[in-house]
């Protein structure tokens, strides 16, 4: 690190790197080779490819980056991460972008942005029970935000899962829930959202 890098106020790229565990500082060395975009299975649905997002981060386009649907379409498959010649922890950076977008209050209230709501429904369930169950999360998520699709789900796939005995209606509660709650409460004080 040169003096100029440490003495200037933190820019968008610095903030993202600071919030990401692992060797996130490799992001400074992004070559813009596009291997990440070429490896991404959901690239076509993103409004900016991963390579473009990294160029935008480098340019400090904070609003555009955090408003982008790119991190929300990341499926966490880690293909970009194993192929990146600069070993940038791209998937972890996508998680950081999600957290920063939530904190900044960015994500449009349109159909494609069900992602933050889905994650929040999941978290509620875990925080109050200690365990989750994917089908319960799915049902609650739809009932809360998309009642019509909940009906579709319950009569279609959901019904099949129930008849196969693969669907629970209540999650299992862990025994020492107060302990988990105390840990999470403390953790939130230490490093809240983002």
């Amino acid at each position, binding site marked *: 690190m040169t003096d100029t890098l440490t003495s200037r106020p933190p820019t968008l790229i610095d903030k993202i790197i600071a*919030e990401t*565990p*692992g*060797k996130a500082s490799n992001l400074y060395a992004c070559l813009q080779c596009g291997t990440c975009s070429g490896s991404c*299975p*959901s690239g076509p649905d993103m409004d900016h490819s991963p390579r473009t997002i990294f160029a935008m981060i480098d340019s400090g386009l904070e609003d555009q980056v955090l408003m982008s649907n790119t991190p*929300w*379409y990341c*499926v*966490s*498959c*880690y*293909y970009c*991460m*194993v192929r990146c010649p600069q*070993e940038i*922890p791209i998937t972890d950076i996508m*998680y*950081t972008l*999600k*957290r920063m977008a939530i904190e900044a209050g960015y994500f449009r209230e349109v159909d*494609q942005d*069900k*992602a*933050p709501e*889905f*994650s929040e429904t*999941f*978290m509620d369930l*875990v925080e109050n029970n*200690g*365990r*989750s*169950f*994917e*089908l319960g999360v799915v049902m609650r998520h*739809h009932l809360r935000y998309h009642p019509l699709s909940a009906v579709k789900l319950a009569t*279609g*796939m959901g019904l*099949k*899962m129930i008849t*196969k*005995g*693969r669907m*629970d209606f209540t*999650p*299992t509660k*862990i025994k*020492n829930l107060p*302990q*988990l709650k105390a*840990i*999470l*409460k*403390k*953790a*939130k004080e*230490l*490093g809240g*959202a983002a």
Partner: protein
Amino acid sequence: MKYGYYPGCSMEKNARSYHTSTMAVAKPLGIEFIEVDDWNCCGATEYIAINKIPAYALVSRNLALAADQNDSENLVAPCSACFLNLKKVDHYLQENTELKEKVDIALDAGGLSYEPGTINVQHLLETLSVDIGLDAIKAQVKKPLYNLRVAPYYGCLVPRPATMGSFDDPEHPTSMDKILEVLGATVIDYPLKAQCCGGHMTQISENTALELIRRLLKNAQDSEADMIATLCPMCQLNLDAYQDAVNAHFGTKFKIPIVYFTQLMGLAFDLPENELGFGKEIVSAKPALAKITEQAPKPKRTRERGKKNVGLPMPIMAEEG
């Protein structure tokens, strides 16, 4: 051999057949799985998207409990997401002191502590293919799965990310292929074996997920696979329960059963059927399993067979005289 066992939430109900078949094959292989008492959810791919320190603390509680309770340093997770979260948190806590300090304070609020690196997190496939080994598995095979054409599907989170070390190739893994071969099955070439099933995308952007699922099913069908063997509850759920939706969306007629590789192991070991959980899958595996024969398939005809080996065309020298 004793192993700590972290089942994860899916194994309780949705992927029950994965859990019961894992327990069933463990016995003859001499593995004793000791479930971590009072484990909690790993947060899947959701928690980390909202809260960083709580997400790490959530997983660390499990690592702390495992280190406290078990006399084995190995912790086995059969679910891909659980495996990755446990391994990743342990790895990043070793690497990042600031993160560790915060997680330590959070754990302390619950009267727990964890020294990163104490626990060796393994996926079930690693335990079976590396620790137990193919010879020990082969020794248990009583009813080989002859003529059953299986596509081995690994998904994302077991082979990747390789930054913290992986027991298999991150893009072209083969450990499950080898296990299935030892079971007597015909393992097909499955180029998309490590591609993504869409994960939670079925809930967020169904069209994105359906296309990813379609590719995987199409690739298996192109190679005339009778079934797809998987090692992850999420992959099984997406490929199995959303197969109808894929057919409706794309006008396809896929009918490919998705089973756990441990179910096939149990079948080849000739274990009691009620422990293996067949029948829980939405696309029935019965027609495919009926294809298993007692006779081993004939070796494939090679191109050379019945043909004289003439070698490369070489210039023929005019005979002297």
